[in-house]
């Protein structure tokens, strides 16, 4: 990049003209409250091309993790789906695959996410509502009926009980005759952000982190193509954080996982290539693109220079993106199609490996077939009709984008320092520091909307008054709970109870003696132990997590 500056007098002329010109009555900040300049020039974007940008597929990967980026392969179009019974979700999976989706992403219901069987008392009213109910290996098999696990990459969004669900998936693959070494996909399994933002935890942090390192080491040997954690910023952002906080807390969590993997005796290059990430793509188009680029650069630098990883694959930050759920409105839901399209575009320009686009009706209910199809088509239109996928990192060199990338990196570094000074991520979780930072940003944002300094079309501008939205919404089938009860009852009567009990005892023993738990979970899956039974053993052994006081 040339170091020539615009002439001082030309700049002064512009500044003078700016002073004289009208300014709209609007707020010129990002969602995060960052003041934006009216224009960015070379002096705003100091960087060293080789050290700070490099080439796609090369350290520090600011410009992308692959040399050819989307010329080689488009991002995976991976729509999150799940509701009702395994059979119902299987139908939705097949619908999406038939319509051009290239990877699966599974949404589970709350009982499953929290490690309870569908017939547990605590599950009453919740079975199959926000995702699919999976209580056993049988349910998993039904979920993937007719879908060859050796050929399709599957993402599973589950955290507390993630190691158990992964075991079900591995066992399911085995029953299909697929070698675990052939399985491709991702298990979210990011417990740190659960304590911070999403709150779908199972046991307290230390035992949860031990289970994660068990997953990392088991998969390094047996399921080497599977991403063992999807280190997520999406939930942190949706809980109300700023872009800088999303970036900082996600990468801080990532670094904590790396530290623990190393402490568990693994070589960083054994597990780091299989760590993946998951970010939000929110309303501020350019800030988001800068965020993705900053994320790659920061991670590469930390992995190589701090953790000493030697394998370039360990330095690469690969990520999935979801467009921002909280940016959608219940009022005039069709507008959400537009919001999602712009957010999806930002993710593509930011170099995402995989993308989920929200459906327009998601503030009202789970997506209908029609709405999810439009969301999928949105990605296809971007991929096929616009030339954005033809060029890698097309916004590199933009003064604005490079300035924002630098700023976000600096903001993140400030947070890393702060977290370290407070004793690390887990200490910050225990003290509620991260949760309070997120809550504070959420309150600031809410106030801005309610005062009208942040405009939301249909909510505080261009409203159309009260009235039912005129679109059809998805309604869950009322028979799901009863069906699940029956399935579980049948399972328990048909299985070898003694074998199941033995496996549960073996799990308890492993909890106490430190043996690899994922290995025990796979055996238990084959013995038809249920999710609730296995998680019950974990809760007994490790205790239940209790959240700290934040308010």
């Amino acid at each position, binding site marked *: 990049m040339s170091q020539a500056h615009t002439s001082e007098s030309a700049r002064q002329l512009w500044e003078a003209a700016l002073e004289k010109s009208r300014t709209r009555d609007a707020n010129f900040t990002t969602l995060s409250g960052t003041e934006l300049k009216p224009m960015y020039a070379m002096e705003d974007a100091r960087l060293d091309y080789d050290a700070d940008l490099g080439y796609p597929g090369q350290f520090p990967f600011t410009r992308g993790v692959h040399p050819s980026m989307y010329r080689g392969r488009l991002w995976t179009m991976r729509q999150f789906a799940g509701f009702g019974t395994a059979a119902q979700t299987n139908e939705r999976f097949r619908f999406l695959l038939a319509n051009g989706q290239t990877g699966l992403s599974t949404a589970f219901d709350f009982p499953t996410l929290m490690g309870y069987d569908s017939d547990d008392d605590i599950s009453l009213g919740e079975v199959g509502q926000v995702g699919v109910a999976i209580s056993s290996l049988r349910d998993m098999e039904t979920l993937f009926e007719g879908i060859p696990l050796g050929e399709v990459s599957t993402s599973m969004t589950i955290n507390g009980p993630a190691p158990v669900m992964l075991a079900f998936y591995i066992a399911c693959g085995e029953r299909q005759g697929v070698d675990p070494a052939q399985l491709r996909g991702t298990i979210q399994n990011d417990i740190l952000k659960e304590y911070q933002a999403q709150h779908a935890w199972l046991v307290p942090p230390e035992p949860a982190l031990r289970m994660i390192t068990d997953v990392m080491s088991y998969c390094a040997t047996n399921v080497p193509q599977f991403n063992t954690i999807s280190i997520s910023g999406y939930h942190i952002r949706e809980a109300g954080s700023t872009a800088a906080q999303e970036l900082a807390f996600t990468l801080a969590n990532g670094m904590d996982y790396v530290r623990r993997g190393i402490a568990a005796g693994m070589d960083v290059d054994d597990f780091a290539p299989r760590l993946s990430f998951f970010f939000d793509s929110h309303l501020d188009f350019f800030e988001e693109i800068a965020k993705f680029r900053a994320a790659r650069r920061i991670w590469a630098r930390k992995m190589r220079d701090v953790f000493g990883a030697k394998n370039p694959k360990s330095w690469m930050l690969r990520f999935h993106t979801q467009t921002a759920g909280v940016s959608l409105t219940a009022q005039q839901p069709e507008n959400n199609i537009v919001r999602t399209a712009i957010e999806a575009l930002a993710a593509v320009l930011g170099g995402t490996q995989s993308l989920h686009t929200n459906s327009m009706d998601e503030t009202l209910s789970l997506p209908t077939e029609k709405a999810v199809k439009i969301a999928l088509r949105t990605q296809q239109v971007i991929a096929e009709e616009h030339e954005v996928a033809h060029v890698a990192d097309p916004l590199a060199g933009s003064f604005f984008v490079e300035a924002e990338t630098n700023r976000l990196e600096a903001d993140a570094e400030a947070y890393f320092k702060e977290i370290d000074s407070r*004793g690390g991520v887990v200490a910050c979780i*225990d*003290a509620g520091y991260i949760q309070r930072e997120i809550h504070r940003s959420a309150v600031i944002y809410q106030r801005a909307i309610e005062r009208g300094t942040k405009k939301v079309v249909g909510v505080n501008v261009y409203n159309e008054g009260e009235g039912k939205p005129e679109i059809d919404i998805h309604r869950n089938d009322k028979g799901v709970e009863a069906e699940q009860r029956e399935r579980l009852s049948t399972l328990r009567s048909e299985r070898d109870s003694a074998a199941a009990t033995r496996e549960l005892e073996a799990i308890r023993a492993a909890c106490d003696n430190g043996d690899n738990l994922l290995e025990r979970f796979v055996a238990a899956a084959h013995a038809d132990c249920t999710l609730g039974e296995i998680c019950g053993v974990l809760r007994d052994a490790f205790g239940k997590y*209790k*959240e*700290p*006081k934040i*308010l």
Partner: protein
Amino acid sequence: MSSAANSPTALAESLLGGNRRALSRLISWAENGHPGFPAVLEAIYERVGRAWRVGVTGPPGAGKSTLVNELALQLRRAHDLQVGILAVDPSSPFTGGALLGDRIRMEELTADPGVYVRSMASRKSHGGMARAGVDACDVMDAFGIERILIETVGVGQAEYDVMGACDTVVVVMCPGAGDGIQAMKAGILEVADVLVVNKSDLPGADRLYADLVEAAHVRAARPMAAGHHGASARSASPEPEPDASGAWQVPVIQASAGRGEGIAGEASVLEAVANHRAYLEATGLDNARRQKRFAQVRRIVDEELDSRVWSRSDLEDRVLAALKAGSTSYDIARDLVVELIDGLVAQTPQEETA
């Protein structure tokens, strides 16, 4: 509740009959300064005095709620005692509202019928909050609760006053909580009967322990250990008699409430509390409690006077007029006091001036 059931007599009866709704409603009456409350207190007063009141205070982040939760669990499981918890949090000085979030750490207790948990905001008037706190404890006491744990954030005068009304005051600190001892309101350490280093698994715990042991020694060595709960503008109780068996030695307990350590058994918080109780019972518990009631009487008098004086609508105008005319605050106040006292004397019936 129907209005008949809402009368002082009915509520008092209901409370003594073990009705939790009545307990809850009466605490609200106390908080709100309901005019019917004094009658209720009179009706239930002979049942007040059996509960042991333990104050738990300390800086934010020390883990008080977790500690209170663990203490309650232990009192229930090991001793099957009826437990009451009063969790006090500050009100916003700007809006008058409050976020009362202590219950979140006491989840298991919600399901236990042998535990009653109540959150209270400090509200505006300092004396008023302490009064309400004592009243709430009296109601819980009469209801049959045997151990009352009062949790406050140890940074305000109001909270200090509440602590002054407790039988045993436990001050909880933890390593890394800012400036530790310096951050605490001056005087809180003076009123501590038991000091606790919580989160004792964290770095800096040993240093804090040593500091607190030192502080406890310094206090014990002072010739006039200024009464059991110190003296202050608000809760000035006359100094108790020096006891015969020697002053109480403040123990420093190491605990980790989150791990259930230091709660019960040897060298634990509960053991220290029990020891303190034994000490008070041996050295004149009734007298010690009477001194605290004196402070309560003073608070109620102050509150009553305050409201009576300043409820006169003409007073504010007169004062403002006098200020406008150039009189100093002292002159105005002195004249006002003289006028008010003369007025009081003038109203006093002859028989009472004996």
